[in-house]
């Protein structure tokens, strides 16, 4: 009898536990109450002091307003956090996981969503979702993968090119012009080495720029069309690689290294995924004051950065409070300040209450930052399968000598 009761209790407990314990974002007051006193471990890339400082600011804000303690776990690679959650699942650690919140997008998100490693859907139930610009910004798809509420957007990124006006007099708004310039000025351009995120972004940007019909890129890659569609990209790389920095025999490891090269006057042109990065870097003495930015005439690709909550997080309520705060006008305006981060907002600024709109109007975007109008059209990210194929192919063609 006793055994039976115990078994029943265990069974019932096992079934009921997730449902009982997981907070429901639709009942926001209850979420805030549960969040009070929780500690949220936010796994986010730690390679940038400015981002680290912003996350620290968020920590101060949420602890003061909601009693949530935020701990920034500084990653060298977002994938570390993903593998962490995966290993926890493998080890049967379905509660009390190490990761409460991840700064994520693209392939990492696709991988976690596919493996059911995420809590949700929650994002569209967050109170601040009402201000998000769901029409004009790509916040409901992440590299063409439907988000479905499993991650909350908090920043917009768009490709721009940084160039040193001391060496390059006018912008180079197309792949052809970049190639011509690089031929005339060998050794003055490079891009981070794929599979680095920014490096693959460069490949994607050039693919989108050079492909005959970008429409085909929104569908998964197929063996039948891959060679045809990507041929212009490989032709372009074939032409430009011998004119690159170090003749393409070495590449900077990532974006910040590339900025360092520009600072050392080793290169004059570099790609960036943040329109205000140049201004921020100039203010931080990390780039010469003569650096400006431009976009391509056909437009450049853009996407959103998100935060997601692992299924086994020990502080889901706290994590949702942080995600909601990240989408608040106050946090968004702070993040857009080039002195802070200079990230694009995910909100629809025009439809904000006047006092919140004023926060954005008051921002000085910085000398090297293009205005929203000048940034022009945002092109969609290709389906992730393209990026994977291209990155692998690049590895074979240029990654090994």
């Amino acid at each position, binding site marked *: 009898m006793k055994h039976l009761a115990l078994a029943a209790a265990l069974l019932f407990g096992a079934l009921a536990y997730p449902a009982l314990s997981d907070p429901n974002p639709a009942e926001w007051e209850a979420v805030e109450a549960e969040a009070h006193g929780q500690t949220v471990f936010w796994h986010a890339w730690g390679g940038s002091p400015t981002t680290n400082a912003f996350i620290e600011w968020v920590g101060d804000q949420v602890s003061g307003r909601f009693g949530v303690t935020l701990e920034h776990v500084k990653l*060298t690679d977002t994938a570390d956090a993903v593998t962490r959650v995966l290993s926890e699942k493998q080890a049967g650690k379905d509660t009390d996981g*190490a990761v409460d919140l991840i700064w994520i997008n693209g392939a990492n998100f696709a991988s976690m969503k596919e493996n059911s490693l995420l809590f949700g859907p929650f994002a569209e139930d967050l109170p601040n979702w009402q201000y998000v610009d769901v029409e004009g910004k790509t916040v409901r798809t992440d590299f063409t993968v439907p988000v479905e509420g499993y991650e909350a957007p908090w920043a917009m990124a768009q490709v721009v090119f940084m160039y040193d006006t001391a060496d390059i007099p006018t912008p180079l708004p197309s792949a052809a012009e970049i190639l011509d310039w690089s031929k005339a000025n060998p050794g003055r351009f490079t891009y981070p080495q794929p599979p680095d995120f920014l490096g693959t972004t460069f490949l994607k940007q050039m693919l989108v720029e050079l492909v005959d019909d970008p429409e085909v890129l929104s569908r998964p890659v197929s063996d039948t069309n891959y060679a045809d569609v990507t041929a212009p990209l490989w032709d372009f790389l074939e032409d430009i690689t011998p004119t690159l920095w*170090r003749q393409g025999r*070495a590449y900077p*490891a990532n974006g910040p290294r590339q900025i*360092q090269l520009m600072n050392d*006057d080793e290169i004059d042109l570099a790609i960036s995924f943040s329109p205000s990065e140049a201004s921020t870097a100039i203010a931080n003495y990390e780039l010469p004051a003569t650096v400006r930015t431009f976009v391509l005439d056909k437009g450049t690709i853009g996407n959103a950065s998100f935060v997601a909550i692992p299924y086994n997080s020990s502080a889901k309520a706290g994590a949702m409070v942080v995600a909601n705060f990240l989408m608040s006008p106050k946090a968004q305006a702070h993040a857009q300040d080039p002195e802070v981060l200079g990230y694009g907002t995910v909100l629809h600024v025009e439809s904000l209450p006047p006092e919140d709109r004023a926060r954005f109007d008051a921002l000085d975007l910085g000398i090297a930052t293009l205005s929203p109008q000048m940034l022009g059209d945002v092109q969609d990210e290709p389906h992730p399968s393209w990026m994977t194929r291209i990155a692998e192919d690049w590895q074979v063609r240029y990654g090994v000598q």
Partner: protein
Amino acid sequence: MAQSRRFYRLALFPALTVLVLLGPVAAGLWGTVLPAFGHFPAAGVSGPSLDAFRDLFNWPGFGPAMRLSVTTGLAAAILSLTITALILAGWSGTRGFRILERLLSPFLSVPHAAAAFGLAFLIAPSGWIARLFSPWLTGWDRPPDLLILNDPWGIVLTLGMVMKEMPFLLLMSIAALGQIDGRRRMALSQSMGYGRMSAWMFAVFPAVYARIRLPVLVVLTWSMSVVDVAVILGPSTPPTLSVQIVRWMSDPDLAFRLQAAAAALVQLALVIGAVGLWFLGEKLVARLACLRIEAGHRGHHDRPLRLAGFATGTAISLALLLGLLSLAIWSVAGFWSFPDLVPDQLTARNWVRHYSSSQDAFFETMLIAITAVAIGLILTIGCLETEHRRNLRLTQRGMWLIYLPLIVPQTAFLPGLQTLLLGFGLDMGRAPVVTAHLVFVLPYLRLSLDGPWQAWDTRQATVAAALGASHDRVLWRIRLPMLLAPLLTAIAVGLAVSVGQYLPTLLVGGGRIETLTTEAIALAAGGDRRAIGVFGLMQTAAALLPFALALPALVWRNRKGLLHG
């Protein structure tokens, strides 16, 4: 009865030590073998299968990456040992040697990543040396497009490793010299007409080498499998095998973990092969030396070689020093571009910006280091005392056990260890990290203490016992106080080792434990030289602090008998 109880209590220390040293390594290797042969439930595969190896062999960079690991590793080990021998043969016992020793020993505790960054900034085409001569001499207004850093042959990587490993071997050799009567061997050979270097090489070096053989192997395997230095200085198209393992390990696509595990086993095999090759090389060198001795060469014309040895030693310490100096300047630099020798302006904002996080990390680092060293010290002294009381000598095999964690490539067993700890629910938090650090701290504690402990005159213990002092009283009142200086050196070495640990902290700590090293390398990934400057300096300070305190000189300032050299 009392006798047997003491027996058990003392046997506890060696047993515990072996467990602490080998448990994590063995478990970690097991955690690597399973996925390598296709057993990895998390990725939805269960083996056995050889797919992972097939994928690995099909990776176009496999051959070059393997070749790079072997060539850079062997070259670094050979060069480090050769330079060490040149310096010792040419200069040991001279004033110049003492100067070199003073110059080099502090750098032992400079973290590898910080040293590598310093070197990178020195020799890059836009680096300090180029700036010194530009544009007035070279005519360069812009840095030349030369592939110096990250060269595909790994030359700079090799130099970077030599720069850090040569001082290690030199100091290990100096310790070994204290155990053999080098001076008299020299005098004897020189009186038979041998030149200084020949005398040292033929009469002293074999005895020194026998004592530093294991440290040399540590240098060899470390050089073959290093990650942080190779990321900074090594080639990237493709990188060395170890770097590629860590890259695959962090790929969101789990299938790559299998490939990484397979590569880790290949890495292990390479290391074992290289060690075998090394043993053959030892025999060959010994045979050549014998031939030379039989021929009776006296080797009088060694002046150029002597100078070369000294010049190399000086160049290495200069490079380390300038590298650190450049980090210091970057940490307070405003805008600083080519070809300016110094920044346009100095600013404290880099330090202000990193103040709070670096302070937290500093305390975390020290807490972990002190705990690990304290536990390690208890175990090590426990073992040494057990061996003393039961009159055991550490056999060659025992020495291998102690060195094992240093010889097995970290990339081969740490990821497996993470999975294991997770399974026990022991992940996260300080305790597992301390345990992981202990694996690497213990061997160095033992290495630092073994010599002085054995060299201690046991007649002191006989006299004390004859005066009625028990074993424990002898240990606490006589032996430990007399060995205070080597004890503190061992503590300083242990702290430096713990401070420098990257992979164990990151993997076993689940990313939640932030030490100066994990912070510095996270920032290094971003390449921000100012941040690297701040954390690199803090890290160096944390490692150097214990050495700088020079406590023995303070405690024993009135005891001449304990203040020799």
